[in-house]
């Protein structure tokens, strides 16, 4: 009876050891089984099988309590200690930019608003046609804005593509897309509008003699999917700041206010560590810009100005629904971004 009892005892012990958390089990289970085996045999040798049964009654509760304790350590205490030693390092965090760097990132928004203001003010008289192209390229407020964006992008590439450079990249891509299908001052540039952007990339990479900035750029987007929402924000921010075909008596004030709102949203985006807060900054900026735009159209009758017939369409409702759909899309992107960051961190930890 004695040996089968000891074997059974060993098997029961090994079975109970399986209940421990994985890391503890891997480290200590073999050793514990060996200690229990020695203890069982020693108890049997000194006091017989009855003592082994009594040992088991005590050991069962001892092991059960120890298993519960180790799970508590693994699931609760370790987590609490990690939070205490590093209270602001959850998995979905990205180091935010400093206030100055965020201002650099928000600068294209401000610059575009200023270009829009200058353009509306008509400070630089440009005839409909006839100016040589090289003059147009350096006099038109929007094209001057584009040069500024390209200079910023070049600096970003030279600096190894820090996070603020995404703002410049987004604006440069938007500008290329916007102008490639536009005729201005008698010139239609088509695909050649992309050449300066391509040139900036080539020159900056040649100076760097490394593809690292390109890799940093792609990795950054892959790491933080909220940058896609930033792209959408740039698109609609530009539309709102443009106030195209708008002749409201206080147009310049609307442009200035919308520029500040959009710049503030971008600044908040780059200052936020967490995906949903970044999205909230963008949606906040967009809400202000939408509100200003809707107010301008609500207080100025564009149909009367352009001699258009009345329509039964509720412009305010359309504007609100459009904003709500955009905000939902952005928040969905934020949730995906949070999932992506958490997943990436977990993979890194393992």
């Amino acid at each position: 009876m004695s040996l089968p009892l000891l074997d059974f005892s060993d098997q029961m012990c090994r079975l109970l050891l399986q209940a421990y958390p994985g890391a503890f089990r891997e480290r200590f289970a073999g050793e514990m089984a060996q200690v229990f085996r020695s203890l069982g045999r020693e108890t049997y040798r000194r006091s017989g099988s009855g003592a082994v049964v009594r040992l088991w009654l005590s050991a069962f509760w001892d092991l059960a309590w120890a298993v519960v304790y180790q799970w508590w350590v693994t699931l609760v205490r370790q987590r609490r200690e990690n939070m205490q030693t590093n209270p602001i390092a959850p998995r979905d965090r990205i180091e935010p930019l400093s206030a100055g760097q965020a201002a650099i990132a928000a600068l294209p928004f401000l610059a575009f608003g200023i270009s829009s203001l200058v353009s509306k003010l008509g400070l630089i008289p440009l005839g409909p046609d006839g100016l040589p192209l090289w003059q147009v390229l350096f006099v038109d407020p929007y094209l001057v804005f584009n040069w500024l964006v390209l200079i910023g992008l070049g600096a970003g590439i030279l600096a190894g593509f820090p996070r603020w450079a995404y703002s410049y990249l987004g604006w440069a891509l938007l500008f290329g897309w916007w102008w490639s299908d536009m005729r201005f001052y008698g010139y239609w540039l088509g695909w050649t509008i992309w050449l300066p952007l391509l040139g900036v990339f080539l020159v900056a990479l040649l100076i760097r003699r490394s593809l690292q900035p390109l890799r940093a750029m792609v990795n950054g987007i892959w790491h933080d999917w909220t940058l896609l929402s930033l792209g959408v924000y740039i698109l609609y921010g530009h539309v709102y700041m443009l106030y195209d075909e708008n002749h409201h008596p206080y147009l310049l004030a609307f442009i200035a206010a919308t520029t500040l709102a959009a710049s503030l949203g971008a600044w908040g985006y780059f200052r936020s560590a967490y995906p949903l807060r970044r999205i909230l900054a963008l949606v906040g900026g967009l809400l202000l810009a939408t509100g200003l735009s809707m107010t301008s159209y609500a207080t100025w009758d564009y149909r009367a100005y352009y001699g258009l017939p009345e329509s039964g369409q509720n412009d305010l409702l359309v504007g609100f629904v459009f904003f709500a759909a955009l905000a939902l899309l952005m928040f969905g992107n934020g949730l995906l971004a949070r999932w992506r960051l958490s997943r990436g961190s977990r993979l890194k930890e393992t």
Partner: protein
Amino acid sequence: MDDLHKRLPLSPAAFSILLALKDGEKHGYAILRAVSEQSDEAVKLLPGTLYNLLKRMLDQGWIEELEERPDPALDDERRRYYRLTGLGETVASLEAERLAELVRTARKRGLLTSQGEI
């Protein structure tokens, strides 16, 4: 040192393990036996409690695992040996002083009749 004082008092089982390792490195089963012997079987450890405490002491740097077994030829390879670190010795000393102070107080109040020197 203040941080170490916060770790006190130790449980009888934890203090017994540190005492057992003060004699030199031991494997798990040897620690069980030493704890039992040094307390006249008043403290009896079982594997669950023993390894909970060993893990905690390893994490806190009070003990460390030997990289090589003292006599591999005569030993079970699953056995791991543990020894006291300097930090563990300091903690054990602080706990011993705390207990000694309690004993002195008990003697002053007439609760201790033996003549042992503390």
